[in-house]
């Protein structure tokens, strides 16, 4: 081993020339570099900016900067009537509009103390679970792309297209549905809807396995996600994490099961948590696995909804919708299990106005993303991409 003259401040850059190490550069500065990632960056899933302080390739601190998509959702709500807020809620988490509408409708119904027809509840859960699968397909597909796997993305979008087609058939829109109204639905589902959904379930069930094999059978994907970005359960709860993120940390807690709403108590499904055999509990891979497992559980729920749904005879989807929505004075905090976690609505009514005094959306992505600073410390830059992807943020909901 030859001696290298590395006297000086800072690092050196060397190369090998015919078994000899040659110094290319000396006295390289080792101070921290600021790397701005986003807001226009493909792997930040929207207009998120991360200000990374890096030491070489290691991140010492990553500070998320948000607000690029802030559209004053809460201020808008104070200026429109209760039913007019429904389309706004679609635009929070635009990948799962049905779930957001569902959460909002439930919050106002609690204030109004409304009784909802059973068929409405079944249709709501049905479309919400379909939307959950569509949303998880985007999450899984784009996560693959983040880590260099292009094929799963195409598979995911091919299957998601069928769901969007079904939801479009029911509501008339592909993403921003305005379908679940306070006290009911915009309209009943089309006549053959159940049949087509059943066809989809039968088609999609083997596809979930195929998709799973494509990603978790891929050595590169595993290497990029295994043991990266580990979040212990206690810290996850303290951070207010919810949904697949919290379950990825091994907390077996699902709103649909542990604090059930609508008709979920009647349905049989498992709460998906990683078993720790293939992944480290709380790492990126665990969170991915939870999403993959949840799609299968959603299929189960959809099948049960189809079996148990009351018939459409004499059914009017708008029968329980109040003519004028003016809740009595009071407040409500109500939440629902969305694909990305708990979406909570805090609504305050003064009892006189047809507009809410205050309507806050507790966004799951916003809370999940707030752990970014702790998660990214000491990680490599490519791993940062894996971590952001596993959080599965939708900036429409983060910035509101």
């Amino acid at each position, binding site marked *: 081993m030859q001696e290298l003259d590395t006297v000086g401040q800072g690092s050196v850059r060397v190369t090998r020339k015919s078994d000899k190490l040659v110094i290319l550069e000396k006295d390289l500065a080792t101070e921290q570099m600021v790397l701005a990632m986003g807001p226009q960056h493909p792997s930040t899933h929207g207009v998120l900016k991360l200000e990374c302080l890096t030491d070489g390739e290691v991140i010492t601190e990553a500070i998320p900067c*948000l*607000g690029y998509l*802030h559209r*004053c959702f*809460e*201020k808008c709500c104070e200026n429109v009537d209760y039913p007019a807020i429904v389309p706004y809620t679609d635009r929070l988490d635009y990948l799962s509009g049905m779930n957001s509408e569902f959460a909002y409708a439930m919050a106002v119904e*609690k*204030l109004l103390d409304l009784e909802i027809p059973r068929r409405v509840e079944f249709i709501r859960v049905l479309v919400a679970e379909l939307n959950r699968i569509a949303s998880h397909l985007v999450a899984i597909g784009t996560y693959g792309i983040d880590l260099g796997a292009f094929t799963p993305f195409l598979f995911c979008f091919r299957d998601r297209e069928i769901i969007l087609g079904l939801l479009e058939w029911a509501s008339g829109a592909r993403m921003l549905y305005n379908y679940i109204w306070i006290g009911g639905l915009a309209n009943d589902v089309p006549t053959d809807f159940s049949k087509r959904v059943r066809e989809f379930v039968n088609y999609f069930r083997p596809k979930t396995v195929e998709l799973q094999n494509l990603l978790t059978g891929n050595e590169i994907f595993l290497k990029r996600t295994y043991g990266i970005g580990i979040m212990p359960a*206690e*810290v996850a*709860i*303290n*951070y*207010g994490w919810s949904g697949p993120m919290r379950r990825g940390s091994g*907390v*077996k*807690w699902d709103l649909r099961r*542990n*604090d059930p709403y609508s008709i979920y108590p009647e349905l049989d499904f498992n709460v998906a948590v990683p078993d720790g055999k293939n992944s480290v509990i709380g790492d990126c891979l665990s969170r991915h696995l939870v999403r993959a497992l949840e799609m299968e559980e959603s299929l189960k729920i959809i099948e049960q909804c189809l079996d148990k749904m009351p018939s459409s005879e004499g059914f009017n989807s708008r029968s329980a919708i109040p003519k004028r929505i003016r809740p009595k004075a*009071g*407040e*409500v*905090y*109500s*939440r629902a299990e969305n694909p990305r976690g*708990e979406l*909570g609505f*805090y609504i*305050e009514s003064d009892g006189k106005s047809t507009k809410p005094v*205050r309507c*806050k959306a*507790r966004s799951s992505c*916003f*809370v999940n993303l*707030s*752990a970014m600073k*702790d998660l990214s410390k000491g990680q490599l830059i490519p791993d940062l991409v894996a971590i952001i992807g596993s959080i599965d943020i939708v900036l429409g909901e983060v*910035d*509101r």
Partner: protein
Amino acid sequence: MEEGKAVSQSVQESAAAYRVIQEQFGAAVSAFDANETMPFFEVVATGRWVEIALFMRDHAKLKFNSMACLTGADYPAENKVGIICNFESLALLGHKVAVKLKCDRTGGSLPSLSCLWHTANWHEREVFDLFGITFTGHPDLRRILCPDDWEGHPLLKDYKVQQSYHGIKVPY
């Protein structure tokens, strides 16, 4: 709530949790509002907020390990602004309770809870941004949704949007 209607179990649990807090802190907390949609109490002695919150988090009968939500609110009639915190004992005791705090509308401040729940960090920044409440002891109290040099706090009821921002006309 209608007269004679049975109080639901979740409200009873919240009331039980409240009694534990009330025993410890007495007049620092207000009476309990046992409504069905969001049972809450108010912390009157806002200076003791961190102490009360720590008690709520760590007491064996309370164990509120999760702060679900922190909302800002404006009460122009009382000339106050405030926050509403929703707590839950997640996967432990399962009970929930909401806590309200109020402070002066201009230059008001409340103690920060970001030392107890990480969730509070960004939520308090959001309340600071949109309502202008200062949180004492917050490690990084900056605007979060609006730009750093934005004027005013948009969710206040008497908010008037600024005419121009860096030469761009704002109101349309």
